[in-house]
């Protein structure tokens, strides 16, 4: 019993890490533009595919050893994925922002962009799923009936590192402060001598780059790639981000692990057919108890 509880704690941590990683990207972009970037889940998917191609290239064409391939894949993927994110911002979101469109129109555009990424992929690469090549040798350690792998540990650790980094950027640096300023009042930002579009680009770079990283780690842990792989996890990550308090880095991080834990633990201790039922009821309860998420500050309407 204890063993399986511990086992599930590890499961929850590892699964939560992915929610957290993706949720961070959501919240980062949201924190600046109050834009729910529904394409984020699909950017994550693109990241996984990019990783797939880079890795296979490195392994087969260049004949690199796994660790070297990985060392190449991570930066390459993060760069390329961030390009995807920035491109989206440039061609789809920015023009709308310039026209002063209601934010939800940008949200819908994001939704559409996501569909394009998914089905574009399907149209180009065909319906066959891709198997992500093993880059590191996964060793299974079993201690007192609790099994975990070096990869799982790596995933969890990197989630914490990414969080720490982003938290530092947003709270400690001027760029981060500028990001928060933009989210509150775009109008006055230039008046502070801040080039708004640069800040926004930086945001998308960060968000997408870490979506890319998540993509790699995910592909390594769940090596079956398909065009729609980002859709559901994207939605869930968004939910996690909001439950944590959207726009708040800590919120996304905690929210991610919370959602992961809820999903895993519900299955562990209830009939798994009730997973969604119970899991979402819990979330609903949390939001009724804390109407602006765990960390979200209620915007004091000053009249």
């Amino acid at each position, binding site marked *: 019993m204890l063993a399986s509880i511990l086992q599930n704690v590890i499961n929850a941590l590892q699964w939560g890490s992915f929610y957290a990683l993706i949720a961070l990207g959501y919240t980062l972009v*949201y924190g600046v533009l109050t834009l*729910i970037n529904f394409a984020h889940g699909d950017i994550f998917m693109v990241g996984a595919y990019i990783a797939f191609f880079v890795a296979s290239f490195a392994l087969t064409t260049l004949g690199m050893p796994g660790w070297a391939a990985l060392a190449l894949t991570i930066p390459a993927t993060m760069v390329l994925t961030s390009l995807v994110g920035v491109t989206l911002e440039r061609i*789809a979101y920015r*023009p*709308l922002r310039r*026209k*002063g*469109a*209601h934010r*939800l*129109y940008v*949200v*819908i*555009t994001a*939704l*559409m*962009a996501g*569909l*394009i990424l*998914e*089905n*574009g992929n*399907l*149209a180009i690469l065909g319906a066959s799923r891709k198997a992500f090549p093993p880059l590191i040798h996964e060793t299974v350690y079993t201690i007192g009936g609790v099994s975990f792998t070096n990869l799982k540990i790596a995933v969890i650790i990197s989630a914490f590192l990414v969080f720490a980094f982003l938290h530092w950027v947003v709270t400690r640096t001027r760029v981060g402060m500028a990001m928060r300023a933009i989210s509150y009042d775009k109008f006055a930002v230039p008046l502070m001598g801040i080039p708004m579009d640069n800040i926004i680009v930086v945001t998308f770079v960060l968000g997408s780059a870490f979506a890319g990283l998540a993509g790699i780690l995910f592909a390594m842990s769940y090596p079956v790639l398909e065009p729609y792989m980002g859709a559901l996890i994207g*939605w869930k990550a*968004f*939910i996690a981000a*909001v*439950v944590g308090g*959207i726009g708040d880095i800590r919120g996304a991080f905690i929210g991610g692990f919370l959602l992961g834990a809820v999903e895993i633990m519900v299955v562990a201790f209830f009939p798994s*057919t*009730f*997973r*969604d*039922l119970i899991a*979402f*009821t819990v*979330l*609903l309860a949390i*939001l*009724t108890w804390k*109407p*602006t*998420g765990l960390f*979200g500050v209620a915007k004091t*309407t000053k*009249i």
Partner: protein
Amino acid sequence: MFRYTFHIILILTGGLITWMAYEEMLGLYTLSVLMFMGVNIIMSTSLNLVNGYMGEFSCGHAGFMCVGAYISSILGVLLFAKDKVFGAPLLDPSLAIYAFPFLILAGGVAAALAGLLVAIPSYKTRGDYLAIITIAANYIIISVIENLGVIGGSRGFMGMKRVINAMEDVAYLPWMPIWVFLFTVFSVWLLRRYLSSTFGKGVSAICQDEVAAEIMSVNTNKIKTISFMVSSGVAGIAGGLFAYVIGYVNPGSFNILKSTEALVMVYLGGMGSLSGSILSAVLFTLLLEALRPLQIIKWVVIPLLLIILMQFRPEGIMGNKELGDMFPWLKKFYKFK
């Protein structure tokens, strides 16, 4: 003089469709497209009440559609059709013909009650937090149905066709097209009357400045509750029709994807414009059918088209105006109370 032109045209269209369907001049394919068009119109207009007029961001509309679909289907089969699960019909199938509208409305009422699932939290929270609550509601509803083995769970539920047959046995008419048309008109009529009353304008007040609304004597919680219930109730009606049109329901048909379709239609048409939602629902349905030949590419082209369209009309097709405001000359052709 011309003020009733609109009503007359409406009646004529309805009559024409019925007649042509009856005479089988309209193929079933065309009819089915028309019927899904009607369902979509109901979906988008009802969602517009919450997302457009009230300025919330509900992403779980399909959930309420689902409630409506199942309730009206189950009732119908239980009462008027012999079924593997429920056995013999409880009532004389020949009554179905009279009961049908009430079956659909029952679905609507049930959905409206389900709407409370969202309405009550909406007192305390709004915006994207409420969005999550609606998504949660959607998931919860689907999950409940998947767990109800009696009504087939994820295997889905069928037998509605037999109810329709029962109706046709009594009088052979294209019942579904007729009812879809009538309920589409009814839904829009209902929404319009609500929103055009001073009472209903409270909704827009909440959207534009909730604090001011509350302090200027608008009972915001009451209005929110009513609006959410109306919105989800009408969605329930759409669900019921959807179920009877297809003759088979399956929880999988009402997932987030379905909800996002409704979202797209609302924003494509324009927040706060019923005629916009109608227009976009029509366009969207036609687009989906017209682009079938593209097969896989279709789902690349459609979003692309929508993105481009948004670039040109960043407020959606109609913005927050109605046709009448856009083309004032139309005004002389109708007069609504």
